[in-house]
């Protein structure tokens, strides 16, 4: 078992960078949405509105951190940190560049899947503890959605794992030096992208918090920094799914040598983040039953077929 942990300094640097980038995504998203909706977006605080994040943070930290008297205090306080912790833990196995990363683990893909499945508790406990009908509805939807889409997420990854022959994300990147997996595994890529959006409940699939139907879904009762953790957790999720897409399907840090590897990684991740925001700007929210039907009746057979064909291809090529 290869199990290498980076130095404390690099772990701290990665943690800091990831959180700062996730917070900056709030600004990036608002600016990009503005761009695509022919508006400007926040541009008042600092140059280009870059310090909007600071203003938001000051606001959210100084807000009253209120626990409703009818809520289950234990679960209510426990729920928001779970999503932050779980997603930040997932970043530990992401290889950012050669030598840059927290853990080089042989079970990286499985670890990410495990953490993604634990992320559902944050939403479920938050909604259940709020003791509020809207929150309960939101967390019911979230639970069903996240558990379902986890399945397709896992199965769509298996093609990549089978082609590489390893669960190690670093080896998956290195195996793509001849060609990115997005070409042979295009179906898996699309399924993973859709499942990733559903898993981080981002906008086309933000059914758990659909404002027009159920107020704010599972975080209806949350305020202050507890809400902030849900909020930053969502952006951390976007960052995680984007970097996973880069690592698994788009060659990670690999790229022409005129830029350093970490820059290639950042550029590709930024591309996918922008794509996520474009999805939010363009596509309306489906109905809940449409989402579930689409998952189980379309994505599941498709991902199984993809896995089957990949396996057959590997057997045929292996000459067995």
């Amino acid at each position, binding site marked *: 078992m290869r199990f290498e942990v980076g130095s404390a300094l690099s772990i701290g640097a990665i943690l800091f960078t990831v959180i700062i980038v996730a917070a900056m995504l709030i600004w990036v998203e608002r600016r990009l949405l503005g761009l695509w909706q022919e508006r*400007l977006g926040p541009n008042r605080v600092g140059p280009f509105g870059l310090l909007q994040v600071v203003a938001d943070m000051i606001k959210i930290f100084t807000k009253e951190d209120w626990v409703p008297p009818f809520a289950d205090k234990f679960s209510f306080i426990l729920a928001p940190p779970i999503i932050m912790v779980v997603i930040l833990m997932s970043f530990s196995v992401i290889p950012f560049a050669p030598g840059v990363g927290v853990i080089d683990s042989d079970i990286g893909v499985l670890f990410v899947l495990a953490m993604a499945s634990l992320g559902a508790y944050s939403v479920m406990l938050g909604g259940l503890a709020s003791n509020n009908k809207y929150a309960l509805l939101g967390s019911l939807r979230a639970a069903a959605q996240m558990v379902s889409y986890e399945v397709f997420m896992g199965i769509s990854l298996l093609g990549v794992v089978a082609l590489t022959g390893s669960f190690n994300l670093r080896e998956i990147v290195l195996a793509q030096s001849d060609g990115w997996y997005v070409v042979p595994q295009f179906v898996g890529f699309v399924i993973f992208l859709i499942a990733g959006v559903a898993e981080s409940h981002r906008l086309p699939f933000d059914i758990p918090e659909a404002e027009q139907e159920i107020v704010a879904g599972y975080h209806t009762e949350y305020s202050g920094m507890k809400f902030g953790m849900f909020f930053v957790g969502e952006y951390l999720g976007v960052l995680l799914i984007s970097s996973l897409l880069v690592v698994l399907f788009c060659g990670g840090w690999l790229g022409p040598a005129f830029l350093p590897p970490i820059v290639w990684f950042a550029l590709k991740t930024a591309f996918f983040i922008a794509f996520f925001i474009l999805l939010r700007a363009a596509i309306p929210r489906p109905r809940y039953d449409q989402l579930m039907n*689409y998952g189980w009746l379309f994505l599941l057979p498709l991902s199984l077929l993809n896995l089957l064909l990949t396996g057959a291809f590997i057997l045929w090529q292996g000459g067995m």
Partner: protein
Amino acid sequence: MLRLIKDTLISQVVTLWRVFVHAFAKTDTVEYPDVQPQMAARWRGRIILSRDPDGEERCVACNLCAVACPVDCIALQKTEDEEGRWYPEFFRINFSRCIMCGFCEEACPTNAIQLTPDFEMAEYVRQDMVWEKEDLLINGTGKYHDYNFYRVAGKKIRGKDKGEALNEAPPVNVRSLLP
């Protein structure tokens, strides 16, 4: 199956592309405090009281505006000078209630009360939202430059007897039988 692929994938991709193209369009935002917006002349903003071309107050204190006002934000009191002209003793508009509907302007028979394109009316003290006649009166005719109510109306004031107004025939002596 093909139908499903068309509905779920192709149309979504087309949507994404069309929205992406918007990135190259010009933004519609007017950066207001830095760039003043172009207001239409008929914009219903701050209310003023205008004067006629002679420089006298147009308002004759008929109270029609106060009646028309749906939120009852106009208060005025009629008084009369020794020449026979009517004018408001006080004229008060509570802009914290005003909804800028423009009904007062439509109701006004003398074009005295008019709405202007000015919309920057915020105050720090709530009492400052109540505007008196001195605040409302402007030194001009507003939107109607030549209109002068007492020059077209039949009412007798100093310097203008009955029958001396524009387009007005001299009064007929009803007790006479002469044509």
